[in-house]
């Protein structure tokens, strides 16, 4: 089996400040990796570098493309990267407004991604959009409403439907449950877990919520000050943390 994503010594600095430094990891098909750390630790910078939104100063990001096998996405041209972003990748933003087109109906938001990969038959597009809206528990009678009329949790589910409709193989998520109330979080987590399993997705999830990674991620990477301080099996890192910072992080969680 070939790894889906191989990240080698990715470094990004903002002037003298470190964004992230010397990050290495390998993600295999079907694996979900969590990235945790305090704000400013470089999690989001890393995610942007991996998804081709930000050019790192050094390093390689090899993605196993369907057609050509592993290729360095940083050496790809813009058109190639865009094609990947539309087909094999998905990016779920923390704020659904960043990932949705607010002026277009819910069905249109899902259909747009299909059209971007060549779908042209209106009836088919609408049917697939309806199917995906149902999978994320958005009822058919809301299909023609704009996302602005949806609640925060519905917007987040719509964003997920829009991203997954093209059957991506790798999903980047930046705090997917941040800003949602806990009952909606629980439902979203269950839905994400189900989708990841059914579709055999791999995912990189950035979050500061340790309970979320425990339930969603197979593996965990802990970042501090732009460096990866610890990585391993999720429950091992959380239950037997080796680095002082991870120990502090785990012992700082409030118990309900």
């Amino acid at each position, binding site marked *: 089996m070939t790894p889906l994503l191989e990240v080698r010594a990715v470094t990004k600095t903002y002037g003298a400040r470190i964004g992230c430094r010397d990050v290495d990891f390998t993600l295999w098909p079907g694996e979900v990796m969590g990235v945790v750390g305090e704000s400013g630790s470089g999690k989001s910078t890393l995610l942007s570098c991996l998804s081709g939104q930000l050019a790192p100063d050094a390093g390689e990001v090899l993605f196993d493309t369907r057609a050509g096998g592993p290729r360095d996405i940083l050496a790809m041209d813009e058109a190639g990267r865009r094609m990947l972003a539309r087909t094999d990748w998905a990016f779920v933003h923390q704020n659904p407004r960043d990932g949705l087109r607010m002026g277009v109906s819910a069905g249109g938001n899902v259909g747009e991604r299909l059209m971007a990969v060549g779908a042209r038959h209106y009836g088919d597009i609408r049917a697939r959009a309806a199917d995906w809206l149902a999978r994320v528990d958005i009822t058919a009678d809301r299909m023609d409403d704009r996302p602005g009329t949806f609640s925060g949790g519905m917007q987040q589910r719509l964003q997920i439907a829009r991203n997954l409709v093209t059957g991506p193989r790798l999903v980047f998520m930046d705090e997917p449950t941040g800003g949602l109330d806990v009952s909606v979080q629980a439902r979203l987590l*269950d839905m994400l877990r189900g989708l990841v399993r059914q579709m055999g997705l791999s995912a990189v999830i950035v979050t500061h919520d340790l309970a979320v990674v425990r339930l969603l991620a197979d593996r965990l990477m802990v970042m501090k000050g732009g460096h990866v301080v610890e990585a391993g099996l999720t429950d091992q890192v959380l*239950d037997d943390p080796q680095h002082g910072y991870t120990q502090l992080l785990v012992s700082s969680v409030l118990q309900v």
Partner: protein
Amino acid sequence: MIEVENVGKSFTLHNQGGVSIPVLAGAALRVAPGECVALVGPSGAGKSTLMRMIHGNYLADGGHIVVGGVDVALADPRQIIALRRAVLGHVSQFLRVVPRVPTLEVVAEPLVTLGVAPEEARARARALLARINIPEALWPLSPTTFSGGEQQRVNIARGFVHDYPALLLDEPTASLDAGNREVVLSLILEAKARGAAIVGIFHDADARGRVCDREVDVGHFTPAAA
């Protein structure tokens, strides 16, 4: 099936003055298929620590922990995940689930993850839930609201729904009434009969005597005071 060789463990608390607490040294254990070995020793001797190391939940400081041909002490996360999925079952004392997921799905999940068709997985989960006396009315509900004993039984059902070749049982009969305790003991005996290698911690001496073939005193692995 399970081989532990010269394993040590100490915990270093970086935020409490860097104190290092040695817990185990030179731990060794061998469990053959169809055999059940009990870990015994006083509280704090390291029974749970040793069990957690076999599960890959705690890192070993050295030595080898081979389960079904995979050395857990050296394996990649990916190999441990695959091992836990198909080979190594674990019944812990605490139930950890996504909130609001029905009990039936919680129990069927290990099979679905292995690729069993959801309908068949649910059918096996139903049979097991009925056997351990979880009332059918509770199956569509999330186990997070259940009583301690019910949660414990849901956890046991999750651990026995797939025929794991190796099983780790942490106090499987604690907080169970006499009737349910009998059911769990018979589940353990059946697992042994089909050839599962089992490591268990039982505070209940009678239960231990009935299902375990031998005892390993973890107190023997306590490091000499430095």
